């Protein structure tokens, strides 16, 4: 059973909040999936700077899962350099960063006014021939490597994958060696950092990133070194 039937009160709350703030966005349920469709305004200082036609397909396990976002107006080219897949899906954020941009427990409205607004604001800026205003992650493994390099402040792929191993594990034991590889046990070294990261990054996201980095291996680093982010 999907979330809107499991929790009708949450559905009504999300719908009321979003439709009150964005009168041109509408909730529709089709084949047991909740969609939010319509014209998405980019607001600034009470003015509408621009509008994009969008469709959000809310995850069956919303709000735990991220929505699938599509730009339906055909305005943004379906190209990797615009972060739009050939099927029209927009890649708004790296899931591992969700805790910062749209923490679990916050409303769908926060997603729309937060990362989604920033995504389309960035698209409008790029459309004017300007660089991505907030930068961009490289695609695939390169972007994953970049993200964890910034988060963990290391370019050591082995250290990074150990951290991800610990984030993906069901439980973490204090006697395990610390991922910083200084020879100490975790309980005597970075245990608090690991605890904090496990609260932020879901096991599922950590597992996915770990798999991506393991498949890419050292090439993720080499490719990332060659890649100059804006």
């Amino acid at each position: 059973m999907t979330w809107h039937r499991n929790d009708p009160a949450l559905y009504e709350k999300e719908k009321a909040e979003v439709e009150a703030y964005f009168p041109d966005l509408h909730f529709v349920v089709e084949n047991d999936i909740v969609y939010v469709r319509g014209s998405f305004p980019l607001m600034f200082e009470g003015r509408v700077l621009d509008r994009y036609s969008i469709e959000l397909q809310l995850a069956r396990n919303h709000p735990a899962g991220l929505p699938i976002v599509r730009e339906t107006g055909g305005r943004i080219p379906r190209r990797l350099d615009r972060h739009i897949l050939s099927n029209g899906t927009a890649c708004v954020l790296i899931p591992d960063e969700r805790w910062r941009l749209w923490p679990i427990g916050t409303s769908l409205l926060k997603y729309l006014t937060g990362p989604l607004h920033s995504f389309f604001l960035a698209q409008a800026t790029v459309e004017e021939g300007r660089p991505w205003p907030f930068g961009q992650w490289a695609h695939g493994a390169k972007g994953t490597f970049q993200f964890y390099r910034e988060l963990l402040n290391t370019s050591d792929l082995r250290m990074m994958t150990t951290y991800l191993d610990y984030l993906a594990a069901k439980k973490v034991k204090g006697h395990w060696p610390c991922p910083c590889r200084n020879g100490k046990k975790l309980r005597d070294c970075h245990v608090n950092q690991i605890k904090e990261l496990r609260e932020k990054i879901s096991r599922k996201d950590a597992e996915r990133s770990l798999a991506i980095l393991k498949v890419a291996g050292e090439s993720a680093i080499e490719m990332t070194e060659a890649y100059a982010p804006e």
Partner: protein
Amino acid sequence: MTADEYLKDVLASQALGDDSNEVKALQKHRADVEKLIRDSFKDTALTIRYAGSKAKGTMNKESYDLDIVSYVSSDDNTAGETLEDIYNNHKSALAKKYYVEPRGSALRLKGCDAENLGVDFHIDVVPGRFTDETQTDAYLYQSGGDKKRLKTNLDVHLDYVRDSDVIDAIRLAKLWKVRNALPIRTFVLELAVIKLLEKKKNKSLSAQMEHFWTELRDNSTNLTVEDPANPNGNDLSKCLDDNLKSQLADSAKRTLEQIDSSGWEAVYGKTEEQEKAARVEILRRAAAVATPSRPWLPEE
């Protein structure tokens, strides 16, 4: 930015190069129209050419038409015995593919299929007949008015405007006409600009425009224009009557007041460059207070 730099930007934003989508669409239409006419008059020696702003270099993006002349040789009756026959036969030929609206000497083409029903293609076809074998002067049929025959010379018209040295001022005056919905024929406006700026060719563009409007404001009642192709034959006074002169004077007065009180942008608005810069600036300001969020992409 000086007034002259601003006016140059306005003109640049109104330019229609040969590689622009608008001109490419017009050229495609022109090819279709020419084929339609030639197929309909297979035995006729026709001269089909661009005329109007496309040929004169005075086209503005905001409002443009494509004029195509289709002239029959002086001794050729295959397209019609009389000027009226030539005009009507062209109309019938064009009606195979377009809805044709007679407009004076011209035939305005509009869409007549389901996809383009009533769409104005901004194309005027002007049928006519050369007066003699030199193929310079031509007679046009006039569907309205007392006089049914009009003598004209395309090359004289084109050269008169192209060699006027005030093309930029003409384009700005045309834009002013459009923005102020002034009911003056474009060719008459061009002649007025050339006449009023005859002794101001060495002045800056902004000075030329201010002079043009000052003359219209102060001396429009005395303004007359002559057709360079037929100075004594074609009476253009009806195209510049007292009512129109009064409208021109009022608009010119208002325009000069706008420049005086609010600057040139009050007349022609922000240029595309200025609008783009303003948009980029507001997007930058919006981004400065937005949640920094970087897009990512899993490998496809």
